[in-house]
């Protein structure tokens, strides 16, 4: 599955300000000046990624330790989908296909 092999890298943590508010988390991206409102598991994904280049299955594995994402296959698909959305927003970058 090509999508799950694509690697992604988040911007450095100081490129954004993260403010959790009840059900949502606000992410202010300094580079664009855009405020994003995101829900789980997006803030957890960014935190878990740090500056590592990761693919969806690696990230799903890491998140599984602290976060209930349902079954493993579902989790990888969900994370892959979220990573693509984050790449579209510019909060993570597609690095390469492994």
């Amino acid at each position, binding site marked *: 599955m090509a999508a799950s092999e694509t690697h992604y890298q988040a911007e450095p943590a100081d490129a954004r300000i993260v403010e959790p*508010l009840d059900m*949502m988390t606000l992410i202010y991206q300094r580079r664009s*000046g855009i405020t994003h409102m995101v829900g789980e598991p997006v803030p957890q994904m960014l935190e878990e990624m740090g500056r590592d280049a990761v693919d969806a299955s690696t990230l799903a594995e890491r998140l599984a330790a602290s976060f209930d994402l349902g079954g493993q296959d579902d989790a990888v698909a969900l994370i892959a989908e979220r990573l693509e959305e984050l790449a579209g927003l510019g909060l993570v970058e597609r690095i390469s296909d492994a």
Partner: protein
Amino acid sequence: MPEFRVQVGPAAFRIGSAWSAPLEQMAELYRDYPKPDFTDFTVRLEPTTWLRRWLRPSIAIGGDYMLPDAAPLPLAQGLLAAEMAMNLQMALGWRRHLLLHASAVERDGRVLVMTGQSGSGKSTLSALLGSQGWRFMGDEFVLLDPVTGQVAPFPRLISLKNSAISAMQAAQRDARFGPLLAGTPKGDIRHMVPPPDAIAQMAQGGAPALLLFPRYGYPGAVREVAPSETFMRLTQASTNYVALGEAGFTTLTRFVKSVPSRAIDYQSGEEAIALVEKLWERLA
């Protein structure tokens, strides 16, 4: 071009007009306000064409910031044109505060902020509270200081619309009112001079303590508003959130995280004031 200068809260305006009548009305209504010797914004009231200065005079608004498609107003509504132009300068040009389209009143150094759509009653409520033990801080813009998080007053003339005009004339018998401007794009409008304490203390801010989203015309109800919903609604109510960048974000998140927020429905001014007092006692 004859001109008039006035300071409202932190903002200094210079209003020039091709006609003297709107300036004379402003000079009278703003007579107790400071006259600044500097200018933040310049506003001009000009004829739409040279002929329109005399023949069915028609006012175009000019100034530092403009809306290209703003419809001209008849000369009889010159005061409204000037007020709209001053609001427009603030909305588009002010950078020293985060601007929220909201009204505010203060008591004991703490501020009640009210925001909502046009017709929600936020302006009328702030005027009513301003005559009942609260200090009126503004009915159009709430100015949040990015450094301190405090609300700075912007007590311009109170713009009363339609049924609020007679309600306030009954409630505030000794207040001063501008001319009745009938048939404006927003119906009948009459400006009211804020109470003397609002003008005398217009350099004095306060800490925001309660945010309300009033809605007029529905049976009395109170609903808690989550911070995320509040944040979203306030970004929509702000005219310069995007322009302020990171300062806008940090100012608004601080406000949302520290100020309790409720939506209130009401059917009369009395009902609203009773609700406000109850919520203030409990939450602020």
